[in-house]
């Protein structure tokens, strides 16, 4: 791992942390309780595009652990929800990215991640509260994940286009 790569991954972790904390301040929950923009996923999506699966996973895990410590939610239900949703969403995103690269754009990749982020969260919430009525809640979250997923994908594309040419491995 080159120094350049370490520095850029660290910058992306920092970016994800700031977005994670800013997102906690946005009162989006009045539309659907528990709904979030998922802004922090910009960082691991960019990490996935720039450096591949491992780097994106590092950014995701570091962001969730540090972000929950900074926000004071470490080892609470919030933390488990964002960890499970984040990991499942990231796995689906990398699957879309590596296997259906020629079919889906980055918007499709981000959309798959956003939808499965919610699926992972709801499954974990079901395991914690063990009440299957919570699955009725899933379609509303998925519908809301649609605009946010497309938005995150667009942001990732715009950011990628602004990066210096030396960083880009692939064209998107």
């Amino acid at each position, binding site marked *: 791992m080159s120094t350049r790569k370490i520095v850029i991954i660290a910058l992306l972790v920092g970016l994800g942390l700031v977005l994670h904390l800013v997102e906690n301040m946005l009162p989006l929950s009045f539309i659907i309780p528990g709904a979030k923009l998922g802004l922090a996923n910009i960082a691991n999506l960019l990490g996935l595009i720039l450096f591949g699966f491992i780097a994106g996973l590092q950014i995701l895990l570091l962001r969730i652990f540090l972000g929950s410590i900074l926000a004071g939610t470490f080892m609470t239900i919030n933390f488990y929800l964002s960890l499970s949703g984040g990991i499942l969403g990231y796995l689906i995103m990398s699957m879309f990215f590596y296997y*259906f690269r020629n*079919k*889906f*754009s*980055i*918007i*499709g990749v981000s*959309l*798959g991640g956003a*939808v499965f982020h919610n699926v992972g969260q709801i499954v974990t919430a079901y395991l914690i509260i063990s009440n299957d009525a919570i699955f*009725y809640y*899933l*379609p*509303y979250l*998925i*519908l809301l994940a*649609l605009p946010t997923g*497309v938005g995150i*994908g*667009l942001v990732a*594309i715009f950011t990628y286009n602004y990066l210096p040419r030396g960083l880009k491995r692939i064209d998107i």
Partner: protein
Amino acid sequence: MEKITRYLTVYDKILIIVIIVISLIMIAYPFISAYFSNNEEQNSFIYIKDSSKEVKRIPFSETYQEEPMIIKVEGPLGTSIIEAHNGRVRLKEAPEEDPAKICEKTGWISKPGPSIICVPNKVSIWIEQTNSDLDAVSW
């Protein structure tokens, strides 16, 4: 808007439509299934736990009869007589040696929440409903 569609591939649009359709089906599903199933079935059960930690489960639908249903439970002090009739249950007679007879004074219960508990005779009776009109019950 046309700037967004410039970035979308055909498969992206298919994915968006599939997601919308699936979530709309999932939203509609509980309403449709509630419409087709008749909610006449009784989902309430009486639970009776005796001193040997054995739990008896009686469906409420069995209590709608002419004669009240009498259940006798043996405890360390004697026999407690439980009566269930028309969707209600009570502890009819506590054993003579029971000093306070709180369980007898509790009277009839018909909803999940209150429970009849006889500490000296180690008998407890409570009601559980699968679709209750209460959100949650805490003791």
